[in-house]
Each structure stands twice: as C-alpha cells, then as structure tokens.
C-alpha cells in the first residue's frame, strides 16, 4: 500500500497545485495568429490590438483583481502550423484561446479547442465557421452570412443595379463571400455580368479589368485582400471604368486608401468595424493605437482589441475566472459600451457565437472614409 499512498499524496499535491494556479496569479491567454506569411497584415494588427487592450486592463488592475498574461504564436498563415501551435497553446491550459484570423486555420483548430472545452475567440469571417454547431467558437466581426446580404440589399435598393460584375480572390475568404453574395443577387434578380476569380498576391489586373469593361455592368462588386484591392482600383481608374465600385471592409480600408491614392475615391462598401466610424470610443481607440504603434490600424486591430474586452466583460459577469462556464455565459450576452467602454459599440452574441452590432456604409471621398449611412443593430 505504501507506494500507492505515496502516489496518492503526490497526485493530491499536483491537483492542489493546478487548482491553486487557476484561482490566483495572472489569467493566462494564448493567441495563435498569422504573424508571418500571406496573412501577416491581418495577424500583426490582431496581435497589436490584443497587446494594447491587455496593457490598458493591467494598468487598471486587471480582471477581478488579476493581471492578464498573453502569449503569441505564429501560424505562418499555414493551417498545418496553426494546428501545431494551437495544440501547444492548449497544453498550457489557457483561460481562452485567441485567433487564428484565417478561416482555414480556424476550421482546422476549432474542433481541438472545443474538445479541450476551452473558448476560442477568432477573427475568421467565413460563413460556415459558426454553422457547424461548435459551442465554444465566437466571432469578433460579422460573418459573411450577415454582411453580404446588407451589401446586396444596398446594390439593389440604392445603386439600383441590374447587372453586376463580381471580382473575388480565390481563397476561402474570397470564395465564401462570392458564394453568399451571388445567392443574394439571385434573390433580387440581379444578373452576374462577369464572374472573375483572381489570385491572392496578384500584381497585374489589366486583363481582369478588360473583362469587366467588356461586360459593361451597372456596378462592380470587389472582394479582394487590401493590397490587391488597391491595385485593381488603380487599374479600373486607368482603363476608365465608371460603374460604381462596391465592396466590403477590405475595399475601403485605410491601407487601401493609402496605397491606391486618388483611385480609391468613390469606392463604397459595407464595413462592420472601421477606425473611421463616427463613434467617439472608436476614435479614442484609433488615437491610442496609432500613438503606440505609429500606424493607423485596420479592422483586424479593432477585432483583437475587442476580443480582450469580450473576455473582461464575460468574466466580470460571471464574477469568477471559470473557463468551463465562459462559453455558456457569452452565448446570448449583450455587452453595452456604456458599461464597458472597451467594447466600443453595443454588441450581442447569439447561440452560434455570431455577433449582432451596428454596421456602416462608407464611401471614400477625397482620400477619407466617409460614413454615408449607419445600419442599426438588429436586436
């Protein structure tokens, strides 16, 4: 019996040790993001947003009196590496897992995180992510299933276009958006005049723009990454395409305006999160961010920032640091900016982990995002 007794004491000591670790000391968070490779812009904005929020919260004494500690791991924008890094992060038993930002990387990691019973707050926007019945996965921005219908409605009601050329980037992000909006166009009886697939990182859009010109559509819907959006805007201007140019967050972002210059003027889009929103808290966030990192963040910076404040609000609602009850508490939770300024805008999470929040229709006027219309929260 002696060795058994000894083992039991050891085990009890170990168990007590872990229990102790969870009830005091810093709250550990793990972030896995695209810090290098094709998604480096996305991942580094996300990471900086997280670091900014953590610094703010820690300066004010942390969450429920406990400081936050966050580790960052690089997925190299590769799903296989993301899986390895998430596994590493899970082995250290974080309170909540943050990231990744690419939808493919989210798809490969979400089942692992759910199996560990840990909540995952991610940046992916593909429609299907929250439709697989995962009870631990939460978005920080609109999924395509909620943003695309708004764009289609705008094209139908306001632009009154009857035929649209659709330009998309052939990865899961672009293809997902294209599939949702094409379906929506079908519902309105809008014809897809040209369906143009492009490559991530493509440099020359002359041939694609010629195709758009030949199709002579009433409007052009552009769904590319930021750099490529800027390149196609320049080419559209060069070839003199005058049809309205409509897109989503990535067409009218700060980075696109910087890269495309004049050519970005007139571009319109639906934006779930924009640093140019006419919201006082977002302006303050933008100032703090640009002061710390010397550049203006895009929406991924806001997403990272919000993720941390989602954790703060949820934990304070529970009144304790409880990784098991976290997801249950966040489902159906409404966080008001009046109570928690870090959340920037009132937000509600539904049972799938999707969000409901104010949105904006913006247009680029003289090199600046101008909000034309505020789309209210649904509930």
């Amino acid at each position, binding site marked *: 019996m002696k060795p058994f007794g000894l083992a039991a004491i050891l085990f009890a000591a170990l168990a007590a040790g872990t229990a102790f670790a969870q009830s005091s000391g810093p709250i550990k968070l793990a972030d896995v993001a695209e810090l*290098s490779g094709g998604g480096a812009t996305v991942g580094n904005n996300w990471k900086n947003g997280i670091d900014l929020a953590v610094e703010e919260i820690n300066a004010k004494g942390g969450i429920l009196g406990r400081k936050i500690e966050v580790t960052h791991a690089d997925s190299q924008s590769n*799903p296989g590496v993301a899986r*390895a890094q998430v596994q590493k992060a*899970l082995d250290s038993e974080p309170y909540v897992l943050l990231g990744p930002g690419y939808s*493919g990387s989210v798809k490969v990691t979400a089942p692992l995180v759910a199996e560990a019973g840990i909540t995952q707050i991610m940046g992916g926007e593909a429609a299907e992510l929250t439709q697989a019945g995962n009870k631990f996965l939460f978005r920080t921005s609109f999924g395509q299933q909620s943003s695309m219908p708004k764009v289609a409605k705008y094209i139908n009601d306001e632009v009154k276009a009857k035929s649209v050329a659709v330009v998309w980037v052939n990865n899961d992000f672009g293809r997902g958006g294209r599939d949702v909006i094409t379906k929506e166009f079908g519902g309105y009886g809008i014809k897809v005049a040209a369906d143009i697939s492009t490559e991530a990182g493509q440099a020359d859009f002359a041939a694609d723009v010629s195709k758009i010109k030949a199709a002579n559509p009433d409007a052009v819907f552009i769904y590319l990454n930021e750099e490529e959006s800027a390149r196609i805007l320049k080419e559209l201007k060069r070839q003199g395409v005058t049809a309205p140019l409509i897109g989503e967050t990535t067409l009218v972002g700060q980075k696109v305006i910087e890269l495309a210059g004049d050519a970005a003027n007139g571009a319109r889009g639906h934006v779930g999160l924009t640093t140019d929103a006419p919201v006082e808290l977002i302006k303050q966030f933008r100032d703090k961010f640009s002061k710390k990192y010397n550049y203006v963040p895009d929406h991924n910076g806001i997403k990272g920032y919000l993720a941390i404040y989602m954790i703060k609000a949820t934990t304070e609602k529970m009144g304790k640091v409880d990784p098991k009850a976290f997801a249950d508490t966040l489902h159906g939770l409404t966080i008001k900016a009046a109570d928690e300024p870090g959340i920037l805008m009132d937000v509600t999470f539904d049972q799938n982990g999707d969000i409901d929040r104010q949105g904006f229709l913006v247009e680029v006027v003289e090199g600046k995002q101008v909000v034309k219309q505020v789309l209210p929260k649904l509930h």
Partner: protein
Amino acid sequence: MTAAAKYLRIALGVAAVLALILVPATFNRYGLYILSQWAVMSIAAMGLNLTLGYAGQVSLAQGAFVGIGAYAGAILTTQGFPLIAATAVAIVLCFAIGWLLGYPALRVQHHYLAFVTLAFSTLAFLVFRNESWLTGGIYGISNIPRPHVFGMATSKPLPFYYVCLGALAIVTAAVWWLIRSPWGRAFMALRENPVRALSLGVDTRRYTLMAFAIGSALGGVAGALYAPLTQYIDPVPFNLSLSLDLLMMVIVGGSGFFFGPFLGTMIAVLLPEWLRFTQGYYLMLYAIAVILLLIWSPSGILGILDRYLTQRRTRAASALRAVAKPKLEVAQ
C-alpha cells in the same frame, strides 16, 4: 570497419529506435504532433533523396506528390475506405504520375529539369484548388478520420504517432534494401556518370523513370499520412514552398546519405520550433542558420561527419605510412 565500430553503430541505432518509441510516451499533444510531422516529412524527404541524392535528378515536384497522396488519402478515407487502401491508391497514383513526369528528365537535366518539375508543381496546385467537385477547392476537406489499426482507434495523438513511426520504419527498411539492390547501384551509376553507366549496360532510360516514380510514390505515402495527421487539408500547404522545403531538408541533411533526410527534416521541422522563444525573429534566425550551415558544408550535416571520418582515416593512413617509411627506406 572494426568489429567494435560495427557494434557501436548497431547499439546507436537500437538506442535511437528505442528513444523514438519510448520517450514520446511522456510528450504532450504538441510534442507528439511535431514529432509525427517529422516522421511524415522524413518519408517524403527520403523519396526525394532517392530521386535527387542517389539518382541525381533535381525535382521541385515532391510537394505536389505529397499533395496528390494527401488528397487521395483524404477523399478515400472520408468516403469510408480504410487508410491502408487509400495509401495503396496514393502509391500507385504517384508512381504512375511520377513515371510520366520522368519522361522530360530523359531529355533535360539539372536546372532545366527543375523548371519542368516546378511547372508540374504549379499545375498540381491549380488542380487541387480549381477542381472543387473532387478536392473541395479552396474550402478543402475537413473531418478526415484517423485509422483503426488491428481494431484499435488511433484518434489520440500518441497512437497516431506510432502509426507514423511504423510507416517510417517500413519505408526506411524498404529504401535500405533498395539502395543495396542492383537498382540502387544503377541509380548511383546514373548520378555519377550516365554515359559510362549506359556503356556498362545499365538501361539509363528505365532507371531514370524508375527513380522518379519510386521517389514520387514515397511522397504519396507521406501525403496519405499527412491528411489524417492534420485531419483537414486545403491546397495551400502543397504549393511550391513545400517542394522547396523538402529539397532543403534533403540538401541540409546531406543529399545522397541514407540518414540525411532524417536529420534534414529534423532541422526543418524542429529548429523553427526551438527558435520560437525569439518571437518575431525566429524565421530569420532559422534562415541564417541554414545559410551558414550550407556555406560551411555544402554537402549538409552528414557531409561534415563524412569529411571528419575521411580526414581521420587519412591521418591514420599517413601515420602508418610515416611509421613504415624508415623500414621501406632500409629495404631499399
């Protein structure tokens, strides 16, 4: 080689195998995943070592063959076929495509051949991405099941690691036998001097095709294991950079050395992970380390060992000569 040295080598080998079996039992999920990745990529690198190191044919298409194997594995196992059947299909498919790809190798050599295989690599990527009816396109294939071996589920990390390790052992034994067979000798003759090999009656045409086909088939085996390892595949991991990575693994380890691919893969898979503590610098440091290694020893890590052993033998021989010299002079 003396008997003692021979026993030492056998003991080292046994110790390494035992370590690979026993030590990971204490690893966490992350460690096991990385080690499984090492085993899988070692198989692909061994295939490329056969094509490049032994038969001297530069191929930038090994990543594409891993992709073909992975898609074959993913499509068949999600349809309910067992992994072993999927692996067999992957081997046959990659062998056949590799054989066809070998034809250009009969006409062009060295970097021209690299270009031809590079084009094939791009073509394969486009097929994975655009033929969505078969490959799921850019959305990829998810929920790839892990196999049951002798009725035991391997969905947990440790059992699946043993599946990868077992596959690596089988492939290692097969390649060990192959390069000691007349085929292996013919491959090396092809690399050293194709004209002479031809004049000695080696059918260089057939052996070139064979080197390509067997190397590619091993890429297929690695792919068929990669799919259940990550349980989700999309076209991105199988683009040109994987082919370049595999080429680097073979060259860093020591091209044409039997154990080169194991070491090269260890460097390529583990070194970036060890360097992660340097945060944003880890990929830069990794690149610098590889560049320095190749400047120091263009023939890879095993090249260093080889040079050291050769030097020691030369020194030993010189010492013997020096001892023998007075006697020889007296004899004159």
